[in-house]
């Protein structure tokens, strides 16, 4: 009996030390090596201090995670931190009392926080137009062009000189096909890469009100002659298979890795994957542009996800969240994250550190992406996209693009349809949130 009570006492002591630590729940959507890197970062933070313990929990895909967060919030069981993909930004922003903005969190907790330390194109995406950061960017990427250097050599092209402009690009694609490849090029994410990034890269408005940053009464305006020309060219090239369609989101990747096509557009987040699967020498280049457009190339925009903080927790907990955010923003944390996962660093210091460590000597790809983001100071057209019902708008674009390629609708009508149907979704969102 005595031994038993001693045991109980020991257990109680253990429990009390655990209770003294504040637990911070973090729901995320990372898998594979990204999840491992995320857990390593958390472990480093937990080991660095004793007051807080961050507990990461995998909640499924991005939409599953967001849904879980929403349901939990409605049931008053929300985690402290939740990872939300970029298309969910406007929904989170307008969630009113549900969200504790990051800039305010850092100020209230008295954490040193300098928004200027961050890469503007990355933080801009998650900030108000006044520059107040609403969520902490976590995994960010941007679109780049991948090309098969071996295929270039075989077609008699210089593998160190990837095409720079779109007309050059299309010519190269034809040559690659003529050299015996099944196709010339393919692309992932038609909405994110060939419409959103395409517009930003040419400093062309995607939507009014600075792409939606300045109000819910924004309208899509990307059905310009420039976009039309671009999509029309791709459509025309799909006829003889110079362009091959490989599916939505990132489903077209196998076309590139199998050597079916010689050039491909994909997020820089896919760099590690390509390094593992491609049995050939490949390079990363900037997105091509139309040189007759005055401001091109401007800068590209990001995709990925950021960390949002839910309201309604004890004040003490938020101190821990703020400390964790500071930790995540440190150059060492960021450099580790960047180099293990391929996602972009969110601070300039982390970029410099990675450069100094010589990472880009063996991995030139990610630097291309960073330079592309930093190419020029972002304008209202290239800071990011801020739309409600954004997911539906992208879906409309994807669906209509398939209808265009299947010949069910002309390129021009299809482009107008994307804009009109997308605007209807924007109006629906505006109606819901208009005060």
């Amino acid at each position, binding site marked *: 009996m005595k031994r038993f009570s001693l045991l109980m006492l020991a257990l109680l002591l253990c429990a009390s030390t655990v209770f003294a630590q504040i637990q911070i729940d973090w729901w995320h959507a990372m898998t594979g090596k990204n999840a491992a890197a995320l857990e390593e970062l958390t472990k480093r933070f937990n080991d660095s201090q004793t007051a807080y313990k961050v507990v990461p929990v995998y909640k499924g895909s991005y939409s599953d995670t967001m849904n879980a967060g929403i349901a939990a919030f409605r049931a008053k069981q929300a985690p402290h931190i939740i990872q939300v993909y970029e298309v969910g930004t406007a929904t989170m922003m307008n969630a*009113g009392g549900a969200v504790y903005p990051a800039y305010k969190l850092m100020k209230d907790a008295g954490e040193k926080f300098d928004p200027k330390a961050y890469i503007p194109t990355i933080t801009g995406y998650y900030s108000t137009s006044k520059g107040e950061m609403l969520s902490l960017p976590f995994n960010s990427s941007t679109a780049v062009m991948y090309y098969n250097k071996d295929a270039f050599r075989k077609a008699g092209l210089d593998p160190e000189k990837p095409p720079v402009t779109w007309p050059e690009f299309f010519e190269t694609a034809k040559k690659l096909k003529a050299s015996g490849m099944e196709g010339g090029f393919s692309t992932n994410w038609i909405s994110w890469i060939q419409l959103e990034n395409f517009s930003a890269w040419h400093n062309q408005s995607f939507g009014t009100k600075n792409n939606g940053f300045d109000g819910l009464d924004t309208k899509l305006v990307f059905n310009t002659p420039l976009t039309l020309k671009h999509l029309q060219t791709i459509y025309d090239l799909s006829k003889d298979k110079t362009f091959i*369609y490989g599916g939505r989101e990132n489903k077209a990747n*196998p*076309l590139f890795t199998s050597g079916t096509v010689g050039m491909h557009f994909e997020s820089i987040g896919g760099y590690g994957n390509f390094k593992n699967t491609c049995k050939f020498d490949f390079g990363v280049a900037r997105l091509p542009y139309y040189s007759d457009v005055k401001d091109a190339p401007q800068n590209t925009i990001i995709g990925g996800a950021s960390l949002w903080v839910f309201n309604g927790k004890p004040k003490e907990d938020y101190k821990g969240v703020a400390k964790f955010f500071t930790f995540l923003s440190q150059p060492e944390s960021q450099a580790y994250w960047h180099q293990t996962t391929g996602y972009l660093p969110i601070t300039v210091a982390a970029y410099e550190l990675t450069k100094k460590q010589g990472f880009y000597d063996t991995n030139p790809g990610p630097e291309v992406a960073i330079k592309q983001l930093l190419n020029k100071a972002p304008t209202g057209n290239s800071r990011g996209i801020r739309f409600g*019902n954004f997911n539906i708008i992208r879906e409309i674009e994807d669906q*209509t693009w398939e209808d265009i390629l299947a010949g069910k609708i002309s390129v021009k009508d299809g482009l107008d349809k994307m804009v009109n149907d997308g605007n209807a979704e924007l109006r629906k969102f505006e109606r819901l949130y208009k005060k």
Partner: protein
Amino acid sequence: MAKQYEFRIKGLPYLLVLPQMVIVFIFFFWPSAQAIWQSFFLQDPFGGQYIFVGLENYRVLFTDESSAYAQSFWVSVVFAVSVTVLAMSLSLFLAVQANKKIRAASFYKTMMIWPYAVATLIAGVLWLFMFNPNVGVVAWFLKHKLGYEWQYLLNTGQALTLLILAASWRQMSYNFVFFLAGLQSVPADFIEAAAIDGAGPARRFWKIIFPILSPTSFYLLVMNLVYGFFETFPIVHQVTAGGPGKSTAILVYKVWRDGVVNLDLGSSSAQSVILMLMVIGLTVVQFRFIERRVNY
């Protein structure tokens, strides 16, 4: 009338059905009531904004072209009916063959039942890996050996055919088991008597076996339609994600997509209510007819 049992303690029967009623209430009545309630609102996902819109969510579904609900409905009908016809006719044919005196019959039977052990989602993945134009083995064979232009990512007919094949493949096992059991319960003396009277195999099948099988067939018809309409979501999700365009977004897929991914809870609720009415309708049909027909 069935036999009745008198409980000595008055409250006991209620207490005994209580657990079941609690489960039905929590998992059926409560969510259904919520779906009906939510279908009258436009709301933000966090529940901060509620705007009462009456029947607007329903009206949009039935009148607004861009909601593509009518299209989704007809695709679902074509899909469910095709799956039912294909899965039932093939499994009946195979069950009849397996019921004959053949060598290794139990081996065939096992092989036939196997696909049912494969989860619908995995079935979708299997077919995806065979037929995906980028990575699929069969797709490669079709394209490079037969010169057939296989691109279901853009061709609606091909996409729908693939979905029907994948969904039928899995459902055939289920039908096969029932048909085989039904066939084995056909009295041998009926067949023998008919054979002595000079009826050929075809005549014996259509005049004797098929009518005896009809309750089984009717049951399977209802089950297959329900499967085609409501349980094939994972296959669509895996193989086409509703594409190309919106052409293979069947009703259940659309409910999920609009609610869970696109967070349009009002419309999604309205769609669930419509689906619920459809299921109730199907169930009523099943009970009325099966109850009547089962005592032939």
